């Protein structure tokens, strides 16, 4: 016994540490920003079902096709009939297709965050170098980018088609640029709202229903109220201003108001009268405020999560 124990130990204490050859990791450590970028790119791919099962590719791809096909048809018609203008403005396209965009947000926002909560993978993320802000920013940016791809792709189709149809280059480029700004705002706003709602439930199905309820019910309520206000103002009720103020209460009409005030779009509000410049400033402020608020709410939500 004494030969195997060169170190003097107290009698009865058999504790010792063996070096059995584990090696420490001495390769490059890619760090926080790399982890954030990876989370971003994985979430973005996941939003279109890439790297996931075939079943989960079906819906996002289908919605993407549904978004682009009408644009392709319009271009085909414009080329064939040698029209002087596209049948739909660049800025109007997203408003017309808002049901599809809402469905996309509703299906992909819970996919992005609810499953992390349900399978308790969020604590695992935070055991890596990334922090709350990185997680929130990566998820927010990924969904906003996915939405931007969804909404900008048909605009590109329209733009390329318009150039092929030899429409006025300067005019089309201006409209295209205005359309891109508007869908970028729309993407940020919808992504924020969708993620905030989805991050509060680990149930995917419930998250989908909650997001779509907020999107469609608010739009349904606002457009109904606007229609009534419009009817009133025709009858001499003097509530034309009310139409613009009511529009503040749903995401779609909010974007509609912003672009008809500043991006040269024709308003889809009843009566076709968008907000004036002064009201337009309020619209922009509310839009930016909502985006900031959803970021803040997400940060608060993930300060403490599932531990």
């Amino acid at each position, binding site marked *: 016994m004494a030969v195997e124990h060169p170190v003097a130990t107290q009698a009865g204490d058999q504790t010792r540490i063996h070096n059995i050859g584990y090696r420490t990791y001495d390769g490059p450590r890619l760090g926080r920003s790399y982890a954030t970028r990876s989370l971003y790119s994985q979430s973005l791919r996941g939003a279109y079902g890439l790297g996931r099962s075939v079943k989960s590719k079906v819906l996002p791809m289908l919605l993407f096709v549904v978004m682009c096909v009408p644009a392709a048809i319009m271009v085909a018609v414009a080329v064939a009939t040698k029209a002087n203008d596209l049948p739909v403005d660049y800025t109007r396209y997203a408003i017309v297709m808002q049901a599809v965009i*809402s*469905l996309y947000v*509703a299906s992909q926002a819970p996919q992005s965050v609810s499953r992390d909560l349900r399978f308790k993978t969020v604590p695992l993320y935070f055991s890596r170098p990334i922090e709350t802000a990185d997680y929130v920013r990566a998820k927010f940016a990924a969904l906003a980018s996915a939405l931007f791809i969804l909404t900008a792709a048909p605009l590109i189709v329209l733009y390329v088609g318009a150039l092929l149809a030899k429409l006025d280059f300067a005019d089309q480029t201006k409209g295209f640029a205005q359309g891109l700004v508007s869908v970028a705002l729309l993407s940020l706003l919808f992504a924020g709202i969708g993620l905030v709602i989805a991050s509060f439930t680990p149930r995917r*199905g*419930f998250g*989908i229903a909650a997001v779509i309820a907020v999107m469609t019910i608010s739009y349904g*309520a606002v457009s*109904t109220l606007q229609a009534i*206000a419009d009817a009133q103002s025709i009858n001499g009720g003097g509530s034309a201003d009310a139409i613009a103020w009511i529009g503040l209460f749903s995401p779609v009409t909010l974007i509609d108001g912003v672009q008809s005030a500043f991006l040269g779009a024709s308003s889809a509000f009843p009566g076709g009268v968008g907000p004036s410049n002064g009201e337009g400033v309020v619209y922009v402020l509310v839009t930016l405020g909502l985006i900031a608020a959803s970021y803040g709410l997400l940060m608060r939500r993930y300060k403490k999560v599932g531990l």
Partner: protein
Amino acid sequence: MYDPTVARLTYRALLGRRRALILGALPLLLIIISVLVRFLAGADDQTASDLLGGLALATMVPIIGVIAGTGAIGPEIDDGSVVYLLSKPVKRPTIIFTKLIVAIAVTMVFSALPTFIAGFILNGNGQQIAVAYTVAALVASIAYAAIFLLLGTVSRHAVVFGLVYALVWEALFGSLVEGARTLSVQQWSLAVAQKVAGGDMVTSDVALPTATVLLAVVTVLATWYAGQKLRSLTLAGEE
């Protein structure tokens, strides 16, 4: 055919915790909007009809139907706890029938009742509009609950498909393509409402006999097939 224990569990799954919040928020919003409209615009039959038809019947009833219909069985299949229910000596069609009753009841309470109240607030049931739309909501509740319960047993993405049907098919295609309206629960229920109202405020594109037959057939068929589906249910892991 009706199992009280299954019913109790389903009620708790549907109305427990936050689910009840969203279910309660929608009707509350409808009533608030009705009060606002009555206050701002006064009582008007056309306004009442627009609001009840556009917001209550076209948007609120399908969404409540999706939440209640798929929520009655979807989450259980999703997290696998349905096996504990299926392993009990209860017939599977009985399970489906019980869950259907619960889903119908929840949809009716959260959609038809507020529609009725909103109708009375809007124009005090002038031209029977409140009653007509309430009847439409009641009828639609039955069909929606059955259809979405079936979807819950067929697909893991039941909520999405349910919403695609309710919003894209009924709202978007229904307004563009005439033929799509024949295959729309909303129009069937409107046909029933038209009969009740009698006037020309409530109109439907589908004749009453067609609508009632289609309603009955769809409800029965969906329930029967959901029962069959549950008999041969395979539990899949998360994608």
